[in-house]
């Protein structure tokens, strides 16, 4: 063994490739740092929770008897909104889990590319969100009488996929804030419930006061619901493309902001020694 020592900080550090960082995180995050990714939770989130949530709001809509809010309208809105569990709520906990398991420091000093790391973590939640909404829309159409226009399958698929990607980006954004806060679960919960109120899932946004309508329009879920409703009803490509563009734009902004926040809060956490605070 050589007795020669390298000066501190000059040890060679190998940078894992972007694709390796992406795939390793895609595979391991559901088992380590994403919330609610146990098989029982996943099955419940995909099959049970959407059904009971839709039933609940469908009965509320039925009792209300408001002509602007049919049972099918509410069923489709909630079918899309159920992706919040596997996208926002699950993903935003990734920072909390790293803190609680004392792995955050190790992660942050690693040379792995941050963007590949976080995008990798989002892969399984995107797929799960897609699956959840697929099953939920099945309930909405098969049980609650939501109408499907001919040729709606492709636009619905694209709408759900884009919304899933954007919502996971939003979850990562909240996870970035958690680097500053002690926990992100409160934020995740708040957005989980705010989605039911401000996204147009249960009633048109026009029912709300104007400032709340603005907040609602800033949420990717709102435009995802618009896109899915437009796709199902066979609205032309024009309005659909606008909705897709907004979903994509909000998703891209969420990812960019998430990475930016990680930069800012990481430096701040180093400075204040608050990296592992939870």
């Amino acid at each position: 063994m050589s007795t020669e020592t390298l000066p501190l900080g000059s040890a060679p550090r190998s940078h894992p490739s972007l694709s390796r960082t992406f795939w390793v995180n895609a595979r391991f995050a559901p088992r380590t740092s994403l919330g609610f990714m146990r098989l029982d939770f996943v099955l419940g989130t995909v099959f049970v929770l959407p059904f009971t949530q839709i039933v609940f709001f469908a009965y509320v809509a039925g009792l209300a008897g408001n002509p602007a809010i049919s049972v099918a309208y509410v069923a489709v809105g909630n079918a899309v909104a159920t992706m919040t569990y596997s996208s926002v709520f699950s993903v935003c906990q990734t920072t909390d889990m790293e803190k609680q398991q004392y792995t955050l420091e190790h992660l942050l000093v690693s040379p792995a590319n941050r963007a590949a790391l976080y995008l990798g973590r989002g892969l399984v939640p995107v797929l799960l969100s897609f699956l959840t909404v697929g099953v939920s829309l099945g309930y909405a159409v098969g049980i609650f009488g939501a109408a499907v226009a001919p040729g709606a399958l492709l636009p619905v698929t694209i709408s759900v996929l884009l919304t899933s990607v954007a919502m996971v980006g939003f979850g990562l954004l909240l996870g970035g804030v958690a680097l500053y806060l002690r926990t992100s679960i409160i934020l995740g919960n708040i957005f989980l419930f705010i989605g039911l109120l401000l996204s147009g899932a249960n009633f048109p946004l026009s029912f709300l006061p104007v400032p709340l309508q603005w907040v609602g329009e800033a949420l990717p879920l709102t435009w995802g619901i618009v896109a899915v409703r437009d796709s199902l009803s066979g609205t032309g490509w024009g309005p659909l493309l606008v909705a897709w563009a907004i979903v994509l734009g909000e998703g891209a902004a969420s990812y960019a902001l998430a990475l930016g926040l990680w930069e800012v809060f990481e430096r701040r956490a180093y400075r204040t020694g608050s990296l592992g605070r939870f």
Partner: protein
Amino acid sequence: MRGTPPPPGPRILGASFRLAAQTFVADPQWLIPSIVAPVIFALAAYEMYRGSGPVLVLYAILGAGMMSMWGQTLYGSGWAIGQDRFLGTLEPVLGAPARYLWVVAGRVLWNTLIGLAGGALVFLVIAATYHAPLPLRDPLLFVGLFAFVIATLATVGLLFSALFVLTRYGGFIQNIGEFAFYVATGCMFPVVLLPFWTTPLSLLFPPTWALDALRYVGVPGYRGLSWGLLPDLVGALVLSVAYAAAAALLFERVVRHVLAQGTADEY
């Protein structure tokens, strides 16, 4: 320690109550299920019911108030056991001479009070938003029955807590079962609107009866379960006593079983 006499129940209850209060203040995430979520549910239902008259606004208040109580009573109590497992404190607590039932009862008591406060807050928020007097028939009796509803919920929380000691799936059951419980107990709409075959299931829960009674008292012209107010109250009372008794019996057996199997730290 073997041979050590257990401390008196009320003392354990008080200590557990204090600890639950301190945990609540230190970890304010419980404000979400007990306050934030019900207010949002109430506002969502309020928007949906708004054009349908003041009676349905009362439904929104009652339903959201009930959700607040459910969120705090069952989430708070049951989740605490999951946290005990996660933090590794369940085993020493079960092994202590103090009866675990008293520990859980202290938590349930605290959560019941917070749930009641959440319900009151929901009422105030909607009443303030509605800009018109709510058509409550008998406000005093209504308040009394509101407290009774939460007492029935507390018995459900107590029984479920016993089951959560047994299983590591407590959190899962709560999360997945949340909306199912709201539907089954008819918290935002009368259970008579549900398919007939679901009625026996709904009637297994004391809050179903208590909520129906609450609506008979509070909502003018309400038509719920056909037998009316008094049988509703008796049914809720009998079932609540049965739940509390079953919880007391079950706790002893469950604690013995978990200690014998060594599964208290399974998470």
